[in-house]
């Protein structure tokens, strides 16, 4: 009896001490971790919009730039249209760009990305899948430059169907179709679905987005 009591007391004290230590560490480190996550988002946004920025800048510095509205050249703005997060930027060569956040289920986990369109809100400037847990070497290749490059200059509004279709490798024709990845049919189908969904929403809100973006 005395023995079990000692065991219970020991376990309780150990548990409380360990938990307290971790809670304290979490409390101290949380601001840094949140800054990292926020800065990561801006790195993705700048990357897809082609905004020049120092890739090696520390998270805190990058955030300070963004908060002071002094993001690399002060021209990226963030708006929300009908629940869609949109980042606009005046690109020196490509003109006005709109980066729209999209998300959807992947094969193994959620996929999140940014679809970046030119000023006509139809032609693709760039695309990024910054969060994904697809099969390494197969589905995960959607994050690679080869697959992403296939979207460049395609159009999301063609032949009344809307969106860009990811076809069997080699089967893509026309400017609203791209080749998929061999061995990653399931991932490609999911990507197809989420790009079509975001394209449809962009079409529906076209006027509002152009207005919000201040298409001057």
């Amino acid at each position: 009896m005395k023995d079990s009591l000692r065991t219970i007391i020991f376990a309780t004290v150990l548990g409380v001490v360990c938990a307290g230590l971790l809670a304290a560490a979490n409390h101290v480190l949380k601001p840094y971790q949140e800054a990292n996550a926020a800065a990561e988002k801006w790195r993705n946004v700048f990357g897809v919009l082609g905004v020049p920025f120092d890739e090696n800048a520390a998270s805190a510095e990058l955030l300070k730039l963004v908060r002071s509205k002094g993001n690399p050249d002060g021209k990226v703005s963030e708006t929300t249209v009908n629940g869609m997060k949109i980042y606009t930027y005046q690109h020196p060569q490509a003109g006005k760009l709109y980066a729209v956040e999209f998300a959807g289920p992947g094969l193994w986990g959620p996929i999140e990305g940014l679809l970046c369109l030119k000023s006509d809100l139809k032609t693709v400037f760039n695309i990024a899948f910054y969060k994904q847990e697809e099969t390494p070497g197969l589905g995960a290749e959607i994050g690679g430059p080869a697959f992403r490059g296939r979207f460049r200059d395609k159009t999301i509004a063609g032949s009344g169907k809307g969106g860009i279709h990811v076809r069997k490798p080699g089967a893509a024709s026309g400017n609203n179709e791209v080749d998929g990845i061999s061995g990653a049919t399931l991932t490609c189908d999911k990507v197809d679905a989420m790009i079509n969904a975001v394209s449809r929403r962009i079409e529906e809100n076209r006027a509002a987005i152009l207005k919000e973006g201040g298409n001057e």
Partner: protein
Amino acid sequence: MSNLPVACGACQAGGVCQGKGLSTLKSGLWANNPISVQVLGICSALAVTSKLENALVMGAALIFVTGCSNLFISLLRKAIPRKIRMIAEVAIIATFVILFDQVLRAFYYDMSKTLGPYVGLIITNCIVMGRAEAFALQNPPIVSVVDGLANGMGYAGVLAVIGAIRELLGYGTILDFAVLSTSWYVPNQVMILAPGAFVVLGLLIAMFNAINAGKGAADAKPAGGH
């Protein structure tokens, strides 16, 4: 629960554990190296060694965790009730692992993303638990810390060697500095992938065995592992 006479004679005799400390250090680093001799901790040794930098950070994590957990488990060795000793060990180990992971996330975000779940998986690393069970529970704190650090360094050393070989052959770089110019060297993709890790680790263990067999090292006990 008392100290094993063989295990800590020198330590109690006085001094700063000269004899015992040194042999403990040597045992962890070489004669009983956790990876090449005991074949423990292989999972992470294969998974995070595609670049030297990753291997070094992972090694540092293990040195920190084995050192700290051995210290605290040794300090508590007479207080831990036998029935729940393993749970107590895991709680202590997990605390330090999560601490390291949190610091990494706050101050070394890119590395934290690269290492992904492997830092957290140190909790289940056989080396840490093994040293706690086999050493820290029977020995006083100072020599336990030496044992923890030695085993951590033994692990880190092997990881660094594998990481260096794989990065050199797979990317042609060491710590991201170009060593083999791509003008004449074609990076060998297989070294970055899992098979490359198996090949390098296998050759390394064979080399260790050959050297130890040559020396007729009596305290090298090859054992099956995880």
